[in-house]
């Protein structure tokens, strides 16, 4: 029983982070029809912003809030500088552009800041752990699950009930009709990027709270996971990202528990193989709606 609860914690912990990241990708995909490969670098930008602000003696939670806003603004800047001039081109052009942005940011982080990890002092209450009987859970894991679910609920409320959220959903559903009824394209796209950056910031907070450091390639692994989660979930619907994130988390945790030690090295390959089989039967993911065309 204890082992099963450990397993559940692992699923929730991994799944929640993957879901948040995948949501960030899907929010942008809904508007522009491409996957922003530099999404992971927004996590890294959050990490460095947090590192510098803590270094300037900003209180931790204020620094977290400012760093989330900073990640959102960086995403908006990314859209304004790199993607807007290419609007109307093929999704492939935008995808390649996002690769280029990611590569350039990596070099800037490595040369301009440091190629090595920078420590981020995590508050004491996050670095401990609790035990309930035979079940042991680190506080960072509990924090991850709570914050991720709270963020998902807030996002749901925002999209369902706020004017901005509704305009975002409307333009994701049918961009041309949304414009006809008066929704401003640039504004709603900027909002989507801001939201995507802020979600990357929250995911980065959870990622860093379990690792205590930021380094140039911080966003790479989570980005790949988010990409997989978004594709298996279905790119055109935020719910899909949610399901995809938790499915990926569940698969990874299950294989970690089931595979014998000498086969653990094949975990990622096994996960991908299972997902390929899944996509053969559901090519558009769990929520099978056709992706929106490029604007």
């Amino acid at each position: 029983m204890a082992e099963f609860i450990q397993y559940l914690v692992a699923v929730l912990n991994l799944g929640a982070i993957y879901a948040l990241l995948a949501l960030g990708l899907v929010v942008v995909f809904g508007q522009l029809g491409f996957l922003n490969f530099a999404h992971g670098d927004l996590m890294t930008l959050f990490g460095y912003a947090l590192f510098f602000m803590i270094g300037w003696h900003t209180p931790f939670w204020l620094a977290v809030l400012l760093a989330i806003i900073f990640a959102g603004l960086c995403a908006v800047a990314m859209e304004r500088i790199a993607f807007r001039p290419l609007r109307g081109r093929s999704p492939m052009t935008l995808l390649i552009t996002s690769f280029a942005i990611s590569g350039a940011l990596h070099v800037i982080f490595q040369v301009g800041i440091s190629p090595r990890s920078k420590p981020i002092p995590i508050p004491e209450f996050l670095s401990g752990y609790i035990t309930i009987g035979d079940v042991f859970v680190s506080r960072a894991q509990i924090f991850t699950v709570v914050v991720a679910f709270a963020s998902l609920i807030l996002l749901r409320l925002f999209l369902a009930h706020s004017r901005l959220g509704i305009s975002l959903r409307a333009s994701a559903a049918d961009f041309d009709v949304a414009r006809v009824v008066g929704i401003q394209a640039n504004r709603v796209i900027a909002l989507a990027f801001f939201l995507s950056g802020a979600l990357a910031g929250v995911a980065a907070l959870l990622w860093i709270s379990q690792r205590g450091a930021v380094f140039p390639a911080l966003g790479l692994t989570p980005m790949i996971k988010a990409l997989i989660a978004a594709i298996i979930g279905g790119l055109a619907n935020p719910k899909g990202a949610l399901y995809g994130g938790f499915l990926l988390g569940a698969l990874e945790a299950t294989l970690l528990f089931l595979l014998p030690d000498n086969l653990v090295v094949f975990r990622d390959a096994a996960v991908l193989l299972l997902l390929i089989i899944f996509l053969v039967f559901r090519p558009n993911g769990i929520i099978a709606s056709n992706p929106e065309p490029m604007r």
Partner: protein
Amino acid sequence: MINKTIFAAVVAASTLAGAGYAPAQAEDFVIGAVSARTGFMAAYDAPFMQGVTMYIEQANKNGGLNGKYPITLVERDDASDPQKTAIAIAELLKSQKMNMFVSSAISPSAIAAGTMVKKENLLIMHTIASQPTIPARAGGGSYLVMMSDAHMGAVYGKFATTGLKAKTAYIVTSDFDPYTEYLPLYFKDSFEKNGGKVVGQSTFTYDQQEFTKVVADIKKLPQQPDVIMAMPFDNDFPIFINQLRAAGITSTYLGPDVLDQPSVKGLGKVVDGVHYVTMAAPSTSESAANFVKAYETKFGNADSFYPAMVGYSAMRMVAAAAEKAGTIEPAALRDAFGQLENVDTEIGKATFKGVGKAPNLPVHIMKIENGEGKYITSIKLDPSEIPKAK
């Protein structure tokens, strides 16, 4: 009279020249370097090259290598990509006449570089590479300039049995890299040779994110092992140590030298008591302490002083080899490098003669306490105690 004096001077000079006493000519000592300034290995290669550069700047202020040969560094970035390594080395070999070479620590890059510069008879070092298989496979003038994995594992085995009086150990390995795969196995050999017993082994993958299964396997043992020798890097280590301690496993944690980072030491109480090995302990010598101060002054922080100190010390070894050879001719320099004995460096007295392609040096055991690395002890092995490469 003047003509006679000039004539005598010319005759004397010719005689001395014929006898090999020609005055030193202005001759540059050229170091070719293809290492990672960007990409994942930049975290280790770049600080090593910072140490090399610090040495060059100081030496050139005093006339160059051993005060005689101004040093020129010709560098290329391979972006942590072995294919780019090969292209950059080919370009350098074509365009430069070099006296020695530095390659990245990435195994395929290091072996490719060693193989490519072999025909030029160049001495080649591989930044902070510690895999004994690199010089074994590259051959020629390929040398490691820090402790090998075999050396590190043997030191840990000896420390665990003699220093910690440990009887049982658990090892956690990963085959994503020879360093993470073999170091625990060298530890195992040494630990069991010294009377200990390895009671279990788990494996992990790089960036695994979750270690609950490994922790559960350790927890299932009838008794907690005295020590856990595990290889997660600084990306996975925080998760592993948190889950390990959360499970109530209090075994002494022995980690590799990559844990010598502020980001690891700053993880709070959960890392108190974690041990790691290093070659760069500022408290062990005045020269090491001075280097750290100089590094911090130059680069604004001391985050990466460990690889930098190894780079700086490696240049001391090169200077000693040039002194021993009496020349900077590549083949002579390469041969003299392998004969070095007790060279004073910031990482300790280094000896290659009778040891092989990696130096014998003191290895320092450190323990994290209150966010700081506290020096515990230094162990210098007898060359016969350093295992052969697996």
